[in-house]
């Protein structure tokens, strides 16, 4: 119960509500999204205790997916990319004058998906942690390898670019003093580089500044009038869409398990949930023409991802996507190292996290239900104006973390790199994964080599690591073979 009391403490609730509010706002604004919201709040979060900081950032993470569905329904403009499927059915409903029904389905889907995924997290995390408790360095190394391979293969149409960015991320992680031998690496004779390249300015630069530089260049969109019959959600419509409860549960489960896999992300979760719902629906012909069932499926799928992504993060220390990579950064900066022992060593923190995730979903649902029209109006705020404000807040925030002007320079340099990579459509998530997993990969590799007296053969002698290596090889080969066959068939 200590976790519950920590979750309902004033500081935690305030952080949770504020984070959720920010998340909904950045989720509604097209071009921003929860990642930008999280990295902007990241420097401020370091002045709080770990659980409060995590509640704040998880609030942005989950709130972002809640918010993303609102403009998708009202204007056919997804606030976050994964809400694209929501717009397929939400907007036609709005055009027919049923915006309240569409929004009821969207918000119910988000809420249900979020809660279902937290329940799965609570039950699945201890099981996975129990399995992982027998892991040694070879197993951890192969798990991390499996994770990065999944991430690289998720963007296999840009395989070379993905590998380069992952490698660059790994290289960034090597700069500074090596933790185990205290040797200098790539410091180029400068004192500033001895502390290494901190993950916070890198993330903030790549996403906070890079993304907002993109936003500065986008044309200002004039939105049409928002068609809402009342300023709050109509509860009678909420009851009406409750009849799709089976779709809700199914989509929540699909979204959680997709979120659990590294490199998959909310877009795939949303698409798969939508696709499964369409296949199993009694009225599949209505999908794409305006059915609340489609909105429920899509939103339950994408909002189940945050808790799903927490499962490998908490039990194995492997982040599933860029957002959970940032959360891993918050853990490690606070001296907490996620892994199987975390659930035993930090039960209060873990329970606080579970309760906070539940409360975040309740808070996000309540906020969007009550302040529906004010939130919908946010979409009209010019993106360029916000971009400029976010940039300056980010730079001051980044300076405040370590009180180092060097970090500001790193953030600007990363912002320029992020801007180029985003404009060119390179898989920037690989770079972040490389930075976050670099140290873990290196330590586990060196420990594995030490165990094997300089040989990696030990990986093939242990059943779990051997199984993971086989799985990794299959993940590389199967999609490549399938792609080659597909290309051959289309050439014929």
């Amino acid at each position, binding site marked *: 119960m200590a976790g519950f009391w920590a979750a309902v403490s004033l500081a935690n609730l305030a952080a949770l509500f504020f984070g959720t509010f920010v998340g909904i706002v950045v989720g509604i604004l097209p071009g921003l999204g929860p990642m930008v919201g999280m990295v902007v709040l990241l420097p401020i979060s370091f002045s709080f205790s770990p659980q409060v900081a995590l509640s704040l950032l998880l609030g942005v993470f989950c709130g972002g997916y809640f918010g993303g569905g609102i403009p998708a329904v009202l204007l056919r403009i997804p606030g976050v990319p994964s809400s694209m499927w929501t717009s397929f059915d939400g907007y036609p409903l709005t055009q027919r004058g049923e915006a309240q029904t569409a929004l009821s389905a969207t918000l119910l889907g988000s809420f249900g998906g979020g809660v279902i995924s937290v329940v799965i997290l609570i039950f699945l995390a201890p099981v996975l942690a129990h399995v992982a408790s027998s892991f040694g360095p070879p197993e951890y190394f192969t798990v991390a390898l499996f994770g990065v391979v999944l991430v690289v293969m998720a963007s296999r149409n840009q395989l070379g670019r993905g590998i380069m960015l992952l490698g660059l991320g790994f290289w960034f992680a090597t700069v500074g003093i090596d933790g185990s031998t205290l040797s200098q690496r790539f410091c180029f004779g400068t004192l500033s580089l001895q502390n290494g390249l901190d993950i916070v300015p890198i993330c903030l630069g790549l996403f906070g500044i890079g993304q907002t530089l993109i936003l500065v260049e986008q044309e200002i969109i004039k939105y049409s009038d928002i068609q809402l019959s009342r300023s709050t959600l109509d509860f009678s419509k909420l009851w009406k869409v409750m009849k799709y409860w089976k779709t809700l549960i199914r989509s929540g489960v699909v979204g959680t398990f997709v979120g659990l896999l590294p490199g998959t992300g909310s877009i795939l979760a949303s698409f798969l949930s939508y696709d499964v719902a369409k296949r199993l629906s009694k009225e599949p012909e209505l999908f794409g023409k305006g059915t609340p069932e489609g909105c429920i499926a899509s939103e339950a799928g994408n909002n189940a991802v945050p808790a799903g992504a927490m499962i490998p993060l908490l039990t194995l220390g492997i982040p599933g996507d860029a957002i959970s990579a940032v959360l891993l950064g918050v853990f490690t900066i606070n001296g907490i190292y996620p892994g199987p022992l975390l659930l035993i060593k930090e039960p209060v923190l873990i329970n606080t996290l579970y309760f906070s995730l539940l409360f975040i979903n309740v808070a996000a649902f309540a906020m969007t239900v009550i302040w529906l029209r004010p939130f919908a109006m946010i979409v009209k705020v010019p993106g360029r*104006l916000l971009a400029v404000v976010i940039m300056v807040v980010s730079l001051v925030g980044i300076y405040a973390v370590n009180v180092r002007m060097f970090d500001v320079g790193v953030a600007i340099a990363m912002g320029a790199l992020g801007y180029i990579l985003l404009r060119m459509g390179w898989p920037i998530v690989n770079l972040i994964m490389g930075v976050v997993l670099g140290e873990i990969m290196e330590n586990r590799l060196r420990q594995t080599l030490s165990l094997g007296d300089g040989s990696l053969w030990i990986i093939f002698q242990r059943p779990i690591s051997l199984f993971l290596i086989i799985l990794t090889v299959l993940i590389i080969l199967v999609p490549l073979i399938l792609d080659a066959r597909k290309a051959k068939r289309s050439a014929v």
Partner: protein
Amino acid sequence: MTEKKMSSSGVHDLLGSILGVFALSMLIASPWQVDTSGPDPFYKGPLIYPLIVCSLILAGSLPSLWRLFKTGRNASWYLDGQGKPVKGLIILGLLILYPAGLLAVGLEFSTWLFLILALKFVKQDSVLKLTLIPIGVTFILYLVFKLFLDVWFPEPLVMGFFSE
């Protein structure tokens, strides 16, 4: 911008090649840039991982290097076909000047000035926006970082000039 035209831009291969050359130079410089004077055997030491990482980047960049070498002269050069990044570059320039401003004139004035200039460049320049937003954001930053979080900011150089 068609898919075909997008893929024919040499910028992708150029960036890939730059990364490849960077990795190669780090690979060559590693023995000097990584302190290996410790007693650890090579497989426990600090050099093995950077070598693997640089090789990984180099391997990933080989197709780009090959394409650039083969078709570089005939390729067209554009970032993404969405126009020249003029606004982005101007704002980036202002961002680079911002830390210098922070050192020279302090948090409040540099933030206020950055916001006014940046808002002007991105054409959010109504009198109301140019007045309220810079003052409001500067005040919030001052409140959060200086008063609430008690973050130390360097004394503006200009203050030293006046106090002399």
